[in-house]
């Protein structure tokens, strides 16, 4: 009951926050210099006042900014994010097209980052100052500091171009047609279609971009796990448990890890939120038609409805993830009460 009340309260906040984000982004897009008419019409067309007027009328740019804002908010209340100036499709349908690609990749990347990050963190903390610890710390520092576009090119160059052991860019090989859209997640949709070979191919395409995206978050998780586990290991209750003769393995698994993982959960949540916003450069190199590429093209075209749509999506992602993380806090540590 307490949890349900908490979720309902969060949903209320969510609506208010989304309204705030929509308003803020709307104001910002109008404040920054740049005109969608100039960005989307050709040099020749811009010389024709009739063409310019038709364009501005089509996208409501001829109306006062305040009127545009009220129209926008009114449409938003009907779940209408407007029409993309660049593609002429509804922003909702565009997000529906590109978000599943980003979601599938982000989900894979965060699982890889969490599993490897926690594992490396434990190894590093339990073997403090050993060679293993140094290696893991070097990996985590590299993961955090390596530029993702460079890492993307390097892994593509070696594992795809030179060694031929990984598939190339894209979500699926040309030998397969896209699975029928159910969830938009190719691995899942291929399985639902009853085609495990296609699902396997889609999964293999996730590996290289997934590991590249995972590198940064994995580094953070490793470092957070290590430092928190070391902190917990030096507390009184652990010392007492040790004195009672508990095995080291049982000590870490049953007593230390749970407490050390609470801050790690925050890092995982933030990492997932970050990944769900799309990664332009990695998506470009791996030809991944996700939110990042859509956002990038939209910004270049001063496509206000699309930019606001992406901003709302990112805000929504963070709010949902934060809510889930808060609920998980309570599950991991029963002392944490949801308020």
């Amino acid at each position: 009951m307490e949890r349900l009340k908490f979720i309902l309260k969060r949903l209320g906040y969510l609506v208010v926050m989304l309204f705030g984000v929509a308003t803020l982004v709307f104001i910002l897009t109008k404040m920054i210099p740049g005109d969608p008419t100039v960005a989307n019409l050709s040099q020749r067309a811009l010389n024709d006042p009739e063409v310019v007027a038709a364009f501005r009328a089509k996208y409501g740019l001829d109306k006062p900014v305040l009127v545009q804002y009220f129209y926008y908010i009114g449409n938003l209340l009907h779940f209408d994010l407007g029409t993309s100036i660049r593609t002429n499709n509804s922003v909702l349908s565009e997000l529906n097209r590109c978000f599943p690609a980003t979601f599938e990749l982000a989900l894979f990347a965060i699982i890889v980052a969490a599993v490897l990050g926690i594992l490396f963190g434990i190894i590093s903390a339990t073997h403090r100052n050993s060679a293993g610890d140094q290696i893991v710390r070097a990996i985590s520092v590299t993961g955090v500091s390596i530029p993702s576009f460079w890492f993307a090119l390097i892994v593509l160059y070696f594992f795809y171009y030179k060694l031929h052991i990984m598939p190339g860019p894209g979500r699926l090989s040309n030998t397969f047609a896209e699975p029928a859209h159910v969830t938009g997640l190719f691995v899942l949709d291929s399985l639902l279609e009853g085609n495990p070979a296609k699902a396997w191919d889609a999964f293999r395409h996730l590996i290289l971009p997934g590991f590249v995206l995972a590198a940064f978050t994995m580094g953070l998780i490793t470092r957070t796990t290590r430092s928190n586990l070391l902190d917990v290991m030096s507390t009184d209750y652990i010392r007492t448990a040790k004195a009672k003769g508990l095995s080291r393995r049982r000590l870490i698994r049953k007593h230390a890890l749970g407490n050390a993982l609470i801050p790690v959960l925050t890092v995982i949540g933030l990492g997932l939120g970050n990944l769900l916003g799309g990664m332009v450069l990695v998506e470009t190199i791996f030809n991944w038609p996700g939110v990042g590429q859509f956002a990038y093209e939209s910004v270049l075209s001063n496509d206000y409805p699309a930019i606001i749509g992406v901003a709302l999506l990112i805000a929504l992602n963070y709010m949902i993830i934060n809510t889930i993380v808060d609920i998980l806090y309570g599950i991991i540590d029963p002392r944490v009460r949801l308020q």
Partner: protein
Amino acid sequence: MKKRILAIALCAAMTLGLAACGGDSASTAESSAASAGTASGSSDDSTVVIAMGSGFSTLDPGYVYEKYPPLIVNACYDNLFRFTSNDGEPEPNLVDTYEWSDDNLTLTCTLKDGLKFASGNPLTSADVAFSINRCKNLQGNPSFICETIDSIETPDDKTVIFHLNTVDSAFLSKLTYSSLAVLDSEVVKENGGTDAEDAATADTAQDYLNTASAGSGPYVMTSYTPDEEVVLEKNENYWGEASNVDKFIIEIQPDSNTQMMTLSSGDIDVAMNMTDDTMAELTDDNVVKINEPTKTVGFVMMNMDESVGGPVSNPDVQQAIRLALNYSEIQTICGEGSVTPYSLIQVGFMGSKGERSTDYTDIDKAKDLLAQAGYPDGFDIDLTVCDLDMEGIALTDLAQVVKENLAEIGINCNIVSDPWAAGYGDDYRDGKLGFTVMYWGTDYNDPNVQLEFLPGKTVGLRAGWTAEMDDQGLDDLYDQAMAATDNDQRSEILGQIQDAMYENGPFIFFAQAPSHIAYSSRIDGVAVSDPYALDVRSITIK
């Protein structure tokens, strides 16, 4: 000890897992290569996979104006006329015979027999009139192409009569433009299309035409995923002779490194957006490389209005700058295949006088001219540049070369960056830029597009070059060039215009951007194409 073994075992398991993922891939890659022989990205031997850049917004012919959509429109639709080579002239396509009236204001075209759309509907003169009127009335980016059309008459199913409001020597070239592709009017109307005068607000067919084609070309668009891929499959109802390619998969791959790797690995057959660097990486004998100039041209603009241009409005200073530029260096920056046109008409266009000699540079003479203009010690000036690129070459890089070249004659340029959509675009069009580096892509494939650089014309006015400043009879030559429908006569007039602007005027055309295309040797017919980005109709499998 046990824990260590466990950790090692875990790592080993993960490594094996990855290797297992890759092992399957390796065998797939091998089998793919074996089946295709060389670099081939096709799922079968009759499929060709093309990688091209991103950045287009629509595939509705009535709206297309960007670089890449003509590739798809040309494959799925027919125009009355079309180009079969990049430096050729428009050739009849749907048209069987055509005739100009004596005053060159009326063009009568007779359509070929047996024309039909992919839907099976017959292609008639009504479809031609619908398509062109729709483009005109949509008031979109390409509507300007119809500005010389007064009306279109269709006395019978096979005859189309164009009445022009002025003589237009580029009219046949304009009829090749993707926006004037002939649509299946029945299908388009069923999906919300209209050619009425209120089409700008009433037409709702763009959504449909973004996802399906409604043409008579050799291919039909069977799927389009924005920012991802377009699939074209053979039109079973095609009226003409099709190539032996059954299917084209056009993948949108913005990164040239990715294109280089996917071509080398055999996942694609054509890489359209290579660079000098990525071309150098391709050493495979099974890959063919093309480095040729496009008609996209970079230029320096010096405003003729002294209150805007300051010292660069002086004709002697303009000539000094023309002499100070190092054209070889600029070509090197642009990449292999780049050329410097003799004057305003690009190499490859009918009537072009070819290239400007790279020995043209003369620093001493440039210094003398500067002194003659009253600037013996040079001067300081802002060189404004925007964030656009010319076929992948950043304008800021070109501005840097101009700055370095001009430093040799004492002109100190302060490069001012100004984003295109956040100020530069407006200032450029309004003639408020004093000194800038910019580029010009051809709207349609005809030398007449370059005549906009003449005094009093669209681009000329951006440099403050009004018709009143014309002291070389360029306005008269413009009228003659627009009116001449005989190609020899056109070439002669265009030659005179190029001579007049060779060492005069506020523009210096420093280089044509090259196109770098690489493709698998299993296919043939790949070539640089300004009108279509890539003419897929000419591609065949060996």
